[in-house]
């Protein structure tokens, strides 16, 4: 997969404070999560990619554009949903979305058509003629999402999109983000301090801590790797069973008593495990795929030295 976001020693200084320090990495996922505790520099990174803050050192490329030198091209390609309230007073939802689509360079008729589409897509179709001031918090978040996608961006920046939402509204927002990702036309960069949001929506994660990259991991690969590492608890002749597993290409790690840790080869799943156990007269009492969850990855990253 080609690199989509390249960070090459990117540093950003705001006033006297160096908020981002020497960020290096290449990300190519369809949906990239920026994860980190509050104040880690997630939003500053998004703003730097948008050209709001100039890099003090290094550079960053997004979708092939240098964010400092080609910020106009970057902004043309990006749809941005900010973290905080961002509204225009006194106008209806459809005018709000249309205006920002026009400002992104869409002709008036196309912008209006897409504004209606975007508002329906996020579930605000029925209230699109109401003024924004009358929207609830959840509706305002959805309106912000609509203005971010209406002009057909190649990249969608979502900054804490589930902030302040109740559980059903949060689920709805996450489902929408997954739909956008699955549609495959728009890449998503999601900044959040909520592990679940990132885990549900992203396939690559950049974890920030104190303005530095604490970890950079491909969740898809992690998930694939996790599917191959199994913990078993067996009853019966575990020795024969282990030998049979090794003979079939599995790696069997040392277990405590009747517990086994098995790395499965490609194409070898739980069905094959149970069949082999049946042949060897062994009962599998417990089977669990290792869950090296994002939470564990995150906690390891937070424990590491900055």
């Amino acid at each position, binding site marked *: 997969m080609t690199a989509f976001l390249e960070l090459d020693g990117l540093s950003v200084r705001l006033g006297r404070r160096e908020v981002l320090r020497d960020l290096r990495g290449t990300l190519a996922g369809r949906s990239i999560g920026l994860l980190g505790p509050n104040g880690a520099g997630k939003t500053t990174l998004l*703003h730097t990619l948008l050209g709001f803050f100039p890099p003090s050192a290094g550079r960053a490329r997004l979708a092939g554009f240098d964010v400092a030198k080609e910020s106009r091209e970057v902004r043309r390609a990006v749809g941005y949903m900010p973290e905080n309230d961002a509204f225009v007073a*006194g106008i209806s939802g459809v005018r709000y979305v249309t205006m*920002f689509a026009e*400002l992104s360079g*869409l002709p008036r008729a196309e912008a209006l058509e897409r504004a209606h*589409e975007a508002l329906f897509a996020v579930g605000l179709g029925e209230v699109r003629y109401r003024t924004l001031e009358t929207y609830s918090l959840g509706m305002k978040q959805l309106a912000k999402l609509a203005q971010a996608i209406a002009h057909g*961006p190649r990249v969608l*920046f979502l900054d804490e999109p589930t902030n302040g939402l109740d559980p059903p509204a949060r689920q709805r927002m996450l489902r929408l983000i997954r739909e956008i990702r699955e*549609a495959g036309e728009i890449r998503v960069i999601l900044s959040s301090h909520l592990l679940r949001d990132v885990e549900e929506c992203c396939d690559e994660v950049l974890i920030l801590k104190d303005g530095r990259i604490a970890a950079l991991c491909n969740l898809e690969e992690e998930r694939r790797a996790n599917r191959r590492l199994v913990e078993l608890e067996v009853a019966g002749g575990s020795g024969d069973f282990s030998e049979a597993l090794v003979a079939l290409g599995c790696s069997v790690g040392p277990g405590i008593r009747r517990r086994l840790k098995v790395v499965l080869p490609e194409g070898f799943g739980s069905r094959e495990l149970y069949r082999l156990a049946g042949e060897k007269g062994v009962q599998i009492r417990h089977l669990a795929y290792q869950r090296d969850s994002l939470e564990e990855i995150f906690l390891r990253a937070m424990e590491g030295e900055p």
Partner: protein
Amino acid sequence: MTVRTRRFRPFDGTPTSTLARVLVLPRYAWKEAFSGKLVTGAFTASFLAPIGALVLVWLKYNVAALVRTPFAGGIPLAIDAQFFGFLLLTQSYFAFALTLFVGPSLVSPDLVNGALPLYFSRPLARWQYVAGKLLVLALLLSAITWAPLLLVFVLQASLAEAGWPAANAGIAGSIVLASLLLVLFLSLVSMAASAWVRNRAVARGLLIALGVIPAGFGEAMNGILDIEWGGVLNIGLAWGRVLEGLFGIPVRAGIPLVGAWASLLVTTALALLLLRRKLRAFEVVR
């Protein structure tokens, strides 16, 4: 109801030009500007003087219409530079009143509602945002300053003797120059004030205070130091002095013409600096 499918498709058409994008801003802000009855009322009232001037000029050259009136012998009024100077001075009061209503509502709501990051995440530079918002006031104030005054000038030129237009061409230039200065000054200062205080009502108060407080300070300086150029702090006086210089209308003397121009231009430049500082996607707290 139309059934719409969920499509997340990139826009692959030709994007609109920079100018077209800038013009989106006044188009959307225009409706908001005229949402209050006071603005509509003030805007309507501001045409009274130009309409009166048009009637006056027409009557001056159509004496027959004045039969049975005290002015049957003709209107004893010269249509000259001073006439246009006073007309523009009158219009500048209306322009200030309209600016008080419209100017602060252009920028401060965007700042208060956090809309600036949305504007600046588009291919739209900060100066283009300012230009787009400024166009609202520029169009509004143009409609009550140079546009109707030039209409009066054209009527006078068409009715007066053959040599009048050539002899008084400078008046048209002065009308345009003074009006543009007024439009630029009022637009930028009102936008800067609203960007600074982020509240429409307070910005209106600030604009009035800007006309009164420095003027009082200047008068105090004049009294204490026995000088006259303290008047440069009086924006109204400086504006009058500029009109005096361009149209020859008599106003209270006291400040040199250069000082009056400098007063207006420096205030405009300060407003631009303030806008540059305040209109950012995000303000960095240092």
